[in-house]
């Protein structure tokens, strides 16, 4: 294990950075009941990069990156607008539709580009073991910046997440929702490029579910979410090395084990 430590250090730090922001964002996502919003926004970002492809930009071209960001802005606006318009239709329905239509449109565009879908698939697979110090630094800086925005805007964000929108105008709910989905979309698209869709989804949802099982106090919940995210990252990395399994999938499976342990504890120690 010791000889592998320097090789696995940056992938592990990438996981811990991802755990830091996603365990927090996960509380909003679970409270709002928009579980698959990360998949939808990641798919919208990929659609942006695909359009870049059509215009002749390589996947690693900064222009493709900006097109992804533009697509996320449009996606965030769409999600905020659709929520406010239709209270009777669950938000998850729109999220699913945005996901499916963005994925299908990407296929249609790829059908007209020379290189085909293989490069688009790379956007969703991620390669945790290839995480470089520069990449981890970039992730950490972005997460920190967005984390600060979330601390500054915590009152309206949490009010909407908890459904306490009395006294807020429709326009201001839309605006705050747009900002929430925008910051959220910028985070997940960067995380997905490093860790892959499956891994990012797990970091978003599982720590907050574990924390909700174990405690009710908001601050303790956040702490439990972070601790479980970090413990699972370290445990998953060790398991991946010991049993020589693909790293991303091992971390996701370890999240399953963590949740099972939390459920077992809840079963043994009722509230």
């Amino acid at each position, binding site marked *: 294990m010791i000889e592998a430590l320097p090789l696995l250090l940056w*992938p592990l730090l990438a996981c811990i950075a991802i755990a830091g922001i996603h365990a927090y964002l996960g509380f909003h996502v679970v409270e709002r009941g928009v579980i698959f919003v990360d998949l939808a926004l990641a798919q919208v970002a990929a659609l942006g990069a695909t359009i870049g492809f059509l215009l002749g930009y390589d996947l690693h071209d900064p222009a493709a990156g900006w097109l992804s960001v533009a697509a996320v802005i449009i996606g965030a606006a769409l999600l905020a607008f659709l929520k406010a318009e239709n209270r009777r239709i669950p938000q998850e329905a729109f999220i699913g539709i945005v996901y499916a239509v963005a994925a299908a449109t990407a296929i249609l565009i790829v*059908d007209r580009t020379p290189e*085909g879908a*293989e490069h688009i698939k790379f956007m969703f697979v991620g390669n945790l*073991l*290839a995480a*470089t110090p520069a990449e981890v630094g970039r992730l950490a800086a972005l997460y920190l910046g967005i984390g600060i925005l979330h601390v500054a805007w915590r009152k309206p964000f949490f009010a909407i997440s908890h459904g306490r929108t009395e006294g807020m105008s429709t326009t201001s709910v839309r605006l705050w929702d747009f900002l929430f989905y925008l910051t959220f979309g910028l985070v997940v698209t960067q995380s997905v490029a490093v860790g892959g869709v499956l891994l990012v989804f797990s970091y978003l949802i599982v720590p907050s579910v574990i924390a909700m099982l174990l405690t009710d106090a908001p601050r303790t919940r956040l702490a439990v979410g972070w601790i479980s995210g970090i413990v699972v990252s370290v445990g998953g990395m060790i398991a991946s090395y010991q049993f*020589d399994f*693909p*790293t991303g999938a091992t971390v996701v499976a370890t999240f399953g084990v963590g949740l099972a342990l939390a459920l077992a504890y809840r079963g043994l120690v009722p509230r």
Partner: protein
Amino acid sequence: MRHRIHPLVRIAAATAVALIWSGAAHAGARLSVITTTPDLASIAEEIGGDRVAVESLSKGYQDPHFVDAKPSYLLKLRKADLFVEVGRDLEAGWAPGLLNNARNARVRPGGIGFLDASAGVAILEQGGRVGREQGDVHPLGNPHHWLNPVNGLVIAANIRDALTRLAPAEAKYFHDRFVSFESRLKSKLDGWRKDAASLGLTGMKVVTYHRSWPYFAEAFGLDVVDYVEPRPGVPPAPRHVQDLIELMKAQKVGLLIVEPYFDPKLPSRIAQSAGVPMVVLPPSVGASPVARGYLDLFDAQLDLIRKALGGGAP
């Protein structure tokens, strides 16, 4: 670019490495060779013999475009003396990141232990769009070059040169093994070409699923007229399937070739509708139990084609 290195620099580098490695080679330490695919591993074993320990990162039944990285890959690359890739962006989705993170400057691109096996190979479908009817292609060319045995010789020579750079004291050993490989491959190649001709493959029109077979077609005279997949990774549209069946009937296509990692349901329906035999052909060593080494691969492929075309044993 690597080919334009000044000869004096090459000699200096070789000497430096000789000083470092001659000791190791004499002490009986094997050079550690890590390849991306089992085809390259098989050729490296042919050339390196007992002076090397060879391992492939991907298995023959895996699509080499997508390989799930494991921590052991990083450890292997860190200890590797030589890394060999197919090149032409085949491994672009996973290998560069791993090389970057393995903390072994020797096997990074430009290092003395990095080998792009496609160097010097006559690459097909290179340089942008060829035209709608032939499909649009990758700027670096089609990466499935090991499927022409003639290119196997170029790969073997590349590996021989790389190993000789790393262990100059063993130059004669590697050279002798290359000569032996070359003569076995050439005599088998005559047999394969005769087999292909007797199976009627020369000039036969074929359709393939993915664009994996242009080099195989080049080696044995097949004529690839269309693909099941209109673009790599894009499932075929209904009209494309319909057009394809019509085209296969009209042009009297003789065979439909499918790679083992695609779902055979749709292609077998296409083959049935067009009345054309279909064969699932392993593109790599290890993709089928009979294709254990590079030289067995073509035996296994031609055998499968013979069975598909309804012929018995030769």
